[in-house]
């Protein structure tokens, strides 16, 4: 990465606590413009907390810089308004609202009506399942559909950075692959930057350029997809050998 290129998002020595328990000890991540970075690690390693620190859901220490501006301590609403869309653990589905309404919530901060309608159509074409259930309450959707809805909703915000928390969680392998294919396509067609937390390294590798592995709140291994795909440690720990 050329030094003159500014990273879209830069975390340096980020810390976070849940009460007295320190969940993040020192996490550092760089996401370049239009780049995609994956965060791997076991349960409890601090992956979700890292995303929460970025979106402001959790208070954090250390440095979180987005587009050259520190956003540490910003409330989630403010972080969202700056162009970061967070698809949280559990998807954050608005169950009592319809699919369409969920998507419109995604576009809440936008004012360009025409473009919103166009984007809506585009996403519904990309996810025909959603199109079919567009009038249903979101709580009636299956796990996979809800995941697609969550990703689409985040996309409706036209973010510059999309952060995704374990898109494959609770999904059957084929469904998860579908979701990742869609994510990959979205990335290709829109060029937005992504930060993806995943337990399933294979899926992550299919979409991101580089990866960092967290263990007990610290980075223990980082590198490009090419470098780490063949890495023995990762293979043993996260790809089942």
């Amino acid at each position, binding site marked *: 990465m050329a030094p003159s290129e500014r990273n879209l998002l830069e975390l340096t020595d980020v810390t976070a606590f849940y009460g007295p328990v320190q969940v993040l000890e020192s996490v550092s991540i760089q996401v370049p413009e239009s780049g995609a970075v994956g965060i791997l690690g076991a349960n409890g390693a601090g992956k979700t907390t890292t995303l929460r620190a970025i*979106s402001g*859901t959790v208070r954090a220490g250390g440095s979180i810089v987005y587009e050259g501006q520190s956003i540490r301590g910003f*409330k*989630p*609403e403010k972080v*969202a*308004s700056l162009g970061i*869309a*967070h698809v*949280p653990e559990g998807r*954050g*589905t*608005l*169950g*009592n*609202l319809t699919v369409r*309404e969920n998507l*419109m*919530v*995604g576009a*809440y*901060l936008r004012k360009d009506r025409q473009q919103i309608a166009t984007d809506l159509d585009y996403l519904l074409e990309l996810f025909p399942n959603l199109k079919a259930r567009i009038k249903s309450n979101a709580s009636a959707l299956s796990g996979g559909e809800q995941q697609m809805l969550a990703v689409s*909703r985040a996309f409706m*915000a036209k973010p510059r950075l999309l952060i995704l928390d374990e898109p494959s969680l609770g999904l059957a392998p084929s469904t998860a692959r579908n979701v990742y294919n869609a994510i990959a396509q979205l990335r290709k067609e829109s060029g937005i930057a992504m930060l993806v937390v995943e337990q399933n390294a294979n899926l992550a590798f299919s979409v991101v350029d580089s990866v960092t592995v967290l263990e007990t709140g610290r980075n223990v291994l980082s590198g490009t997809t090419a470098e780490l795909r063949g890495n023995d440690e990762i293979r043993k720990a996260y790809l089942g050998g």
Partner: protein
Amino acid sequence: MNPFGTFVQLVVDALAQGSLYAALALAIVLVNQATGLVNFAQGGMAVLGSYIGMTIGGLFIPLVGSTAGILIGIIGAVAASLLLGAFVERFVMRRFERAEEDTKVVATIGVLTLIVGLVGLIWGFNSIPYPFFFTSSESIRIGDVSVSVWSIVTFLTIIALMGVLQLLFRGTKMGLGLRAVADNSPSAALSGIRVGGMRMVGWGLAAALGTIAAILLASKSGLAPNNFDGILVYALAAVVIGGLDSPIGAVVAALGITVLESLAAAYIPWIGHDLKVVVPFVLIFVVLIVRPQGLFGRKAVVRV
């Protein structure tokens, strides 16, 4: 009047009375913060709003005549209650956002007690008549049946209000935001919706709705600080029976409770007027035992 006429009159009056409870119940469901907060403060704001309406109206009636004055009073009351609701949310309720349940409940009780006390101090504790467009004893004849004007006006007004609210909630962007915050506020925040602001709007709307209901009630029974304890408890009963997260449920339950209560009072002599208040509360027991989430409720209120 023949028995049928009596029956109709009973039902119409009950529907009208019930619609008042329905309005307040709807207000409570509106600000339901997904935890089924017992919200006594709504009652307090309704009371204060109605007194403000009377005062403003009183100021303007000599100037612009009765009808216009009353109308200005009502508009003033609604405006004041919008602000009041937002204020209470921002400066009182938000402080207790992360508190335990019983703390939140007691906080709303504190707000209610304080507001009612202030109202009594400022305006006195005796019942004051509320000047209105017509007196509460006027009635019109429809065929063989004599129906009170107040009942008709009240019922229609509340229904119209609910229609307006439906439009707001389903048809506007702000309505979408309000519903998103009510459904899952952390998730709504992630989409950039300002949760605090939405809560303030929600409380303001609820206060305004309650105020209109209180004014309607006052036009019939007069203004007194404690007149409205009744509506609040009935409204809460309706919310519980209808289901904490169901606006329709709250309205249906409120109307249903009142009609049942009136019918029981009239047709079951043992219950009569003295014991009629027992009916809704026995209903609460029955419904909650059989279906704890309320008749129309969805979210589980049962602890596993």
